[in-house]
């Protein structure tokens, strides 16, 4: 991916990647993961990462978990 991402930023690189099966999907997946990680995008879909992490901290504190 370290190689693919810089390639994808260049027109000739993108053309090259289109020849590689699955590369477009792989790049899309990485971009999509970043986008849907945003709080404002995830929250309307029912996911609040901050609340999940805070619940974890609270449980560990209350129950003496590591």
């Amino acid at each position: 991916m370290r190689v693919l991402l810089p390639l994808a930023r260049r027109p000739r690189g993108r053309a090259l990647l289109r020849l590689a099966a699955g590369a477009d999907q792989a790049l899309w997946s990485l971009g999509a993961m970043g986008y849907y990680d945003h709080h404002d995008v995830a929250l309307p879909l029912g996911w609040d990462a901050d609340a999940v992490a805070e619940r974890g901290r609270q449980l560990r504190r209350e129950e003496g978990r590591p």
Partner: protein
Amino acid sequence: MSTIYADACVIGAGAGGAVVAAELAEGGAKVVVLEQGPAHDADAFTARPPQMMARLYRDGGQTLTVGNPAVALPLGRGVGGTTLINSGTCFRTPPHVLERWRRESGLELDDAELDRCFGRVERALSISEVSPELAGRNAAVARRGAERLGWSHGYLRRNAKGCVGSGVCVFGCPTSAKQHTGITYVPRALAAGGELLTGTDARRLMIHRRRVRGVETRFPDGSRVDVKAPRVIVAAGTIHTPLLLGASGIDSRSGQLGRNLSLHPATAAVALMDEVVEMARGVPQSFYVDEFARDGIMFETVAGPPAYAAMSLPLVGRRHAEVMASYPRLAQLGLMVSDSSRGSVHGIGRRPVIRYDLAQADIEKFRAGMGRLEELFKAAGAREVFLPLPAGVVPERLRARDLRLMAFHPLGTARADARADRGVVDGRLAVHGLEGLYVADGSVVPSALGVNPQLTIMALATRLAFDLLETPCPSLSTERGDG
């Protein structure tokens, strides 16, 4: 340069190394554990996949094989190893696999002894079956489909205690419910007087006259520390153990070092349901369908937050966005293949190059498995099923290059075989032809298991530890004082 003296040096604090270290330390040995990665603090677990992949995974989770098709191979990095970032699923080694190892690898595997080792690990890690309530609605969808088709299924057993179904096992459990080795066996080793050195890179095993003498290590600042020990247990993982052995001049007579790599290649389908699923509420990997396990095909639920689902949804562009808008109604099920394909690992510089091509027999398993996945989701009432295939490709005609694969269970690159000309280690995990050197990770597993391997690795590591202590692994009843 400084030198540390110990009875045993363990390289790696994952599934194998942490177990050996704790058992040896509690048995009275002075143990030093070398771990390349850091110790992770659960306070820093954010439940955000991109952040956590960058922190907890080797190479940010972007380790790839070279071959047809390329396979993503996520590996954990840090105290706990891959147990830190796996789903926690625990299967004992299937009996037919043990029988195969006896038959093909000449391994002497005593069922009673293995039973004691499995039991000891299961108790240490609080392994129990996931309840339907905790499994969540993603598992309920899979269960409904399996029941309607009459397929064998069940809830998975996991190493978790006090789990509340946070839905992010593979991105660092924020509640520390998952009993990975970093919070179980490693603290036990330290409490028994063991020493853990994180951020240490084991460069070379010191070997003299066919006997191991210790390990040469480097810290990130370049400083050198030698650990002198008459026993060294290599547990750097299936990908890195053969590199360390090779770099130390161990040229196995068998020619098997770095070869025989199996992966359990896997993929997953997504289904749009009419009902609300909210796949990240509950245990992501909680339910299995083993109807086709004898054919090398296993289904296990997989799930995660929107960022995870967006990464695994096999669509692009506007269609991807449309389906993601229905994320609360998406269900997901993984397909894992017990592979007969075999790859290899070799080093360029100090980095691994993993070569793996999917054999025709395994392509056939994916063809059959994809069809079954679709069948199961439709039986469960799916409105639409998204198979991980390019547009226009149907399961029965898929080619290797059409597959989007990940793999989580690399095994076999220092395989055990009773014969020195067939394996790197013997049946008790001692490296053939060398004194004092042992391997205790997935690399010794002689063949694909067809199920998640962490419990197998831990049980074999337990057996090795008690071998080294020259005492039998106690049974649960003995430990309780029943007899």
